[in-house]
């Protein structure tokens, strides 16, 4: 009796294996993407119905994990398409010759958005949707906590927002990296970092995933989040009590799609890219669950009222994003953010709180000595540990860019990271001390 039971088990297992192997022989298009299931599922279905016999395989990875995946896949077994938001990731891929150059433009797509080219001038990848960065907030949360609605990044450094903000970390999320770069490029290295540190000091959490921010705002854990536009727009379209604005220091950059070099199914890949750039493929972006900005201007005619249109001049994007600059210092910015902010968040928050408290006590009082202490505390807590000069140093940047890590290099980088980390901790502790001394002087 037992043997028949086993036989049945084996039959089931064998049938399952046959079934799964059977699908391998259909034409499979493998797409590496950082996009959520809501988006990929719509495109997968649309493309599969238009091309019977084709199976779209979605490999869902974070942007940097996706780059690592493409790089480490063996040469004879590469996926076909890379599809993600962050232009710098595409820069990295095309520099490493991991993308296939070909002409697949849709002629109706404008050459530029602002001064930023929508398609890669060298032809390695194509802009598929546009994205801007901004602020989303939970209206119920702000009302309950009596917090005013923000308009600009600079608003978020105010004491009234302490503990209500959330951001992600650039090392984990390509879109957060873009946001941070946008602020750094818009405000300049030193001022940008100072603003970023103050916002992070006001933050309740540095989330691990980029979606952690909009998710937390949606369910009301956090009041305000720094997000890419479609997170805010799609949440609003899904019925959550949230709002989204583009601040003036924003940039509109394309989310891209590109064919991977040595793709197993290159022709099918090109067909898919052409589909995403066509009128039909662009209209899919207007799906309320997706809510992205099409690159094809004509599609906006079909959009619902109040849908942001970057071609109409309604969004004032002050920053002309420089992706070469961003790519050159990619790892430095990520690593600095992690060492100063992500991993030292508790200390940074303590310093920020002490500074807010002290400045509240000193408000309206004329106490130059206390003001001086407070200014020192601010300088310690909110200045970047790597100055602008060093951030331009080619040798310094090169140390971080190479991914091959021998023990010598590992030692150097970990040594540097440790130095930053412990310096940040020391600075924050000192800032707390100075700020409380300043506060105690206020009589």
């Amino acid at each position, binding site marked *: *009796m*037992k*043997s028949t039971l086993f036989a049945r*088990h084996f039959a*089931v*297992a064998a049938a*399952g294996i046959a079934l799964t*192997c059977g*699908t*391998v022989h259909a034409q499979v298009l493998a797409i590496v993407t950082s996009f*959520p*299931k*809501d988006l990929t*599922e719509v495109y997968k279905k649309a493309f599969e119905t238009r091309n019977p016999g084709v*199976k779209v*395989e*979605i*490999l*869902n990875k974070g942007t*940097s*994990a996706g780059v*690592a995946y493409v790089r480490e*896949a*063996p040469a004879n*077994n590469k996926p076909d398409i890379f599809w993600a938001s962050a232009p710098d990731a595409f820069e990295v891929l095309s520099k490493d010759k991991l993308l296939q150059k070909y002409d697949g433009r849709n002629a109706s797509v404008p050459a530029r958005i602002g001064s930023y080219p929508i398609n890669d001038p060298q032809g390695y990848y194509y802009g598929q949707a546009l994205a801007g960065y901004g602020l989303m907030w*939970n209206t119920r*949360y702000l009302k*309950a906590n009596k917090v005013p609605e923000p308009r600009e990044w600079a608003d978020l450094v105010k004491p009234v927002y302490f503990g209500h903000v959330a951001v992600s970390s650039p*090392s*984990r999320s390509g879109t957060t990296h873009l946001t941070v770069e946008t602020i750094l490029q818009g405000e300049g290295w030193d001022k940008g970092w100072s603003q970023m540190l103050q916002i992070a000091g006001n933050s309740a*959490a540095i*989330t*691990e*995933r980029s*979606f952690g921010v*909009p*998710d937390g705002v*949606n*369910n009301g*854990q956090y009041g305000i989040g720094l997000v890419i536009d479609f997170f805010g727009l*799609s*949440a609003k379209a*899904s*019925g*959550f*009590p*949230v709002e989204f604005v583009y601040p003036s220091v924003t940039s509109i950059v394309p989310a891209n799609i590109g064919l991977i070099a040595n793709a197993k199914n290159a022709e099918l890949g090109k067909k898919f890219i052409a589909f995403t750039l066509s009128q039909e493929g662009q209209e899919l972006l207007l799906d309320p*669950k997706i809510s992205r900005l099409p690159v094809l201007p004509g599609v906006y005619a079909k959009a619902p009222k109040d849908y942001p249109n970057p071609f109409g001049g309604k969004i004032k994007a002050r920053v002309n994003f420089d992706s070469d600059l961003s790519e050159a210092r990619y790892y430095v910015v990520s690593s600095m953010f992690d060492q100063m902010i992500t*991993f030292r968040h*508790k200390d940074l928050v303590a310093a920020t709180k002490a500074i807010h408290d002290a400045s509240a006590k000193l408000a309206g009082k004329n106490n130059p000595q206390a003001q001086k202490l407070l200014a020192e505390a601010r300088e310690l807590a909110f200045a970047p540990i790597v100055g602008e000069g060093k951030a331009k140093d080619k040798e310094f940047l090169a140390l971080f860019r190479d*991914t*091959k*890590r021998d*023990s010598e290099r*590992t030692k150097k980088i*970990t*040594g540097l*990271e*440790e130095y930053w980390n412990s310096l940040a*901790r020391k600075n924050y502790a000192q800032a707390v001390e100075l700020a409380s001394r300043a506060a105690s002087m206020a009589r």
Partner: protein
Amino acid sequence: MSTANAAAGVHVQSRAARLKRYTPAQLAIALLIAAFLLAFLIIPVANVVYIAFAEPDGGFTLSHFQSFFHLSLMRESFWNSLLVAGSSVVFATLIAVPLAYFTVRFQFRGALLIQTLGVLPLIMPPFVGAVAMQLIFGRSGSLNLLLKDAFDISLPIMDGLNGVIFVEALHYFPFILMNLVVALSNIDSAMEESAQNLGASGFRLFRRIVFPLAMPGYVAGASLVFVKVFDDLGTPLVLNVTNMLAPQAYLRITSVGIEDPIGYVISVLMIVFSLIALWASALALKGRDYATLQRGGSSLARRSLKPWQALLAYGWIALVLLLVLTPHIGILLLSFANVWSFSVLPDAYTMQHYATVFEDSPRMIWNTVFYCGIAALIDVLLGTAIAYLILRTRLPLRHSLDFMASAALAIPGVVLAIGYLRTFRGIEIPYSGELLTSSWLILVIAYAVRRLPYALRSCMAALQQLHVSLEEAAQNLGANQRRTITRIVVPLMGGGILAGFVASFMTAAVELSATIMLTTSQSYAPMSYGIYLYMQSAAGRGAGAALGVLAVAIVALGTYLSHKLLRSRAADLDRLV
């Protein structure tokens, strides 16, 4: 048959065994099992350890470890992991001990229901629980909103490490509960009665007599909780806690790349600490005799509680059960919720999320059943074979099979996954041209290897309880060895094998640590990964929760059915006797 005859039979048998210690078939099976374990456990893990100590050109170095300990972030992660695992054990104990003690040692209505409900947390992936707990205990969760309204206070239950400890303790306490229930029911009540005669009562009786006697069960459960929490990746990730070892290993390998040596150093440390925890639990029990003369329920006299005691006990248990079931309640609410934002309960309810799941992802449900089914099947096959080889043959080195298989318990999922990615990089499955590391097969293998210790333990226990004379009787009646195994041994071990199957299946279905690293494509993804994926978008939160509810339902159904099967089988056997 006379006794003399039987004795002679045994004598002949053992002389034959001395002459020939094993058959070629047994040797072949043992070698096959060893090859499987070597390829999918020992070599990948050895590879990880090797990289942690190797220069790129092959020389030995300790410099990666120096780099690691030089980073204060890593030191901090290390202490945080220890702290979280340790505190989780403490809180899990606080939950599990009263539940077990009251329900086993006292006359208690609904004891079985309480013990069953107590196992429920195990069948939900802990990170799904974490999402639900955020909504109920988080900063703007139901509880804090109510507290803020009423008293203007809020409790930081889910902030940082607190949240991880809270979720892990609630998730893993059943390991302590289950082991403790068994241990407590095996205590001879004469011990307790003697103590009472000598004047001990109340807490003193529990502290000095009952708990020490149940120590083996407690230590086994507690060390398992420690290891599991130490290894868990999904919960800290969902709660945005990154300064712990498992998340750091994951972040290092996925963002810096598979070449980053620090990831391997973390892996080695995680293995070492898991080994220490398991070794310490063995050491704690060594050299003590826990055997009591009489065993089993028959001697157990349940005491009755005084009314005020009963009130306290029921109250406490109700509170604990409510707490234990909040993740389930939360996820159920979320799966029906239209919009749930900054409010005590969702604004409106809908069935839409279930429709989405059935439309989009029936494949994931099937994948989970299929992968975990095969993995559990491999586990019981290997478990039965290993148990038989160890207990019934004299194959040299047979105990090393047990050792190797059990070693999987000390290997965190992240580490095994890293080992696979490294060892099998670029290797293709014959005839399909597909990469092993990007196929579903690697998931099945990972599940099978990681859950083998559970299945092995229950198979061993089942075979140990089976007296060898039954096999000898069959052989005396003319059955050859194969027939004896298939007709006598395996059917009589049935219950144990099934229990092993269920344990493997259940725990594999909710595993995320290895899954998240080894899953490459959505169509091969199991449910646990699917839930994680759904939870990445605003519209997907409800759908993810719905998938979570389905996962719980499937695992619960499977467990229930196998219990039923087990009972009817037991009834069959009784009729036979």
